[in-house]
Structures are given as C-alpha cells and as structure tokens.
C-alpha cells in the first residue's frame, strides 16, 4: 500500500504509523461528561467503505495526515496535512 504524503509524495506503508479513527471528537479536557468520554474512547462507527483516519508519516517528514481510506479495498481516496484539513473543517 502506498500513501501519497502531500509533502513527500507516494511512499511505502512501512514509513507510516496509523493514529486512529478521525471521526470521533475529543471532549474538552475540562469536561466531566462521562458519556462523552465513554463515546470518545470506545464508540467506533466501524465503517465498511470510506473511512476518515489519522496517520503520521513517522518515517518521513513526520507530518500528521488526515486520510480517507476504503476499508473494503484499501484504496486511499484522499490525503491531507491533518492541521490544514482540520482548520478547513473548523472554518465551515
């Protein structure tokens, strides 16, 4: 599997580290909402299809990436620098 890092270009999977599901929202650090924390830690959408997830190009530029990958075919649909992707989301 190749992931096309926006900075480095297509690189082998062995250079990357999976950093988890990008669909969940971390509660505010001061939050006492038990169910919100429970959902953040345990609930997963278990997608069959296009899945939003975080990766790090740990064996390369070390940037954190927001990736959309099909869990059915492993096809990588999109890759963005996580910070830029999240700033765009937040601006919406």
């Amino acid at each position, binding site marked *: 599997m190749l992931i096309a890092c926006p*900075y*480095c270009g297509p*690189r082998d999977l062995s250079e990357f580290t999976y950093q988890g599901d990008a669909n969940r929202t971390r509660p505010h650090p001061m939050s006492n909402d038990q169910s919100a924390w429970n959902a953040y830690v345990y609930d997963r959408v278990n997608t069959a299809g296009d899945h939003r997830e975080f990766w790090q190009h740990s064996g*390369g*530029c070390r940037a954190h990436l927001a990736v959309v990958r099909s869990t059915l075919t492993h096809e990588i649909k999109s890759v963005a620098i996580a910070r830029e992707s999240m700033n765009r989301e937040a601006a919406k």
Partner: protein
Amino acid sequence: MVEIVSPLEPDYRRGAHGNREGGSGVTLSETQPGSIVQLAAWPGQDEALRKVIQTVTGLHLDAVPGAGAIVENTAAFGFAPGRWLVVDQAEGRGETLRDRIGSDLGTVCDLSHGRTAIAVEGERAERLLSKLYALDFSAGAFPVGQAKSTAHHDVFTLIHRTGVDRFDLYVYRSFARSFWHLLRASAEEFGYTVE
C-alpha cells in the same frame, strides 16, 4: 576549536574495500560539518523563515517540498512542512541563525552533535541507496539539490542529493555506527573506498 570525535571511529577504515573486480563503485566518507541546524517555522511563517535562511546562507531555496541547494561548504534543504536543515562545514551557524530568527518566526535547534553526516558518492551510489530505502533514486525522480526524509527500519535519514553521483545522508549519531556497518556491507558487492 575542539577536536571532532567521530562515532564511526572504531570502524572507519580508510582505503579500498570489497569486490575490487570492477574498481571502486562508491566512495563513503564522513563529512563532519561544523554546523547542522534544524529550523522550524510557526504556522503561517514558512515564507518569512525561508527568506531568512536564504539571506543567511546565500542559497536559493524554492518554495516547494524538499527544495534544497548547495554551494561550496554550505547546504540547505527543506525536509518537512515548514522545516529546513542548514549544514555548514564552519562552526557557529546555529548562533548566526538564532540571532536572525525571533521567537515569533520559529525555532532554531542546533543538531551539530546529534547527527552524523555521511557522503555516498560514485557511479553505484544510486544503486547502493536503492538497496536500503524504498525510494526512487533516479535523477528524474530525485534531482540534484532535492532532499527527502525517509527511514531504513528505525534509522531515520535525511538524504540530500548534492551531485549527479553524490548523496549526503544525515542519521542520528547514536545509530551512526550501526548504519555505517550496514552501508559498508551493502557496498561490498560494488567495491568501495573509504576516504
């Protein structure tokens, strides 16, 4: 000036090694730069920091990933978003850059003692490095001046192509001797010279 101590020292044997049938395919050398400095821009400050690096080093750096340049004893290249490495054979570049880069612009991290620089040069240099890294080392995919961040297993490596047949590698000093062993073993089949 203090004497530079090499982490490769016990295993750094100058001369000709390996398969000598075809002559020497590659030359390996530790370049021992006096300054290896990492610079990182705060978000939105990439352009401003790149311009300061250009002014201080006198090198032209394009605003594209991995862009680098080399003149005589100085090299600079981008290796990650908003991050550059500046290398100089002279000591003290860290101080020069720190004086010019305010805390509003980014950070300056002097890695002169933390990295070991190894030059791989010769007609088999591309082939040798292809054995170690999952990268395309052909001149089309990896032109002179460009740099790439990659890793061989856990040995993180910055690779700067400083000539048609030359690559400058930067590895963690603590891994350097082990990496040097690997490099020598990999160069055995081509015949190599340690300079």
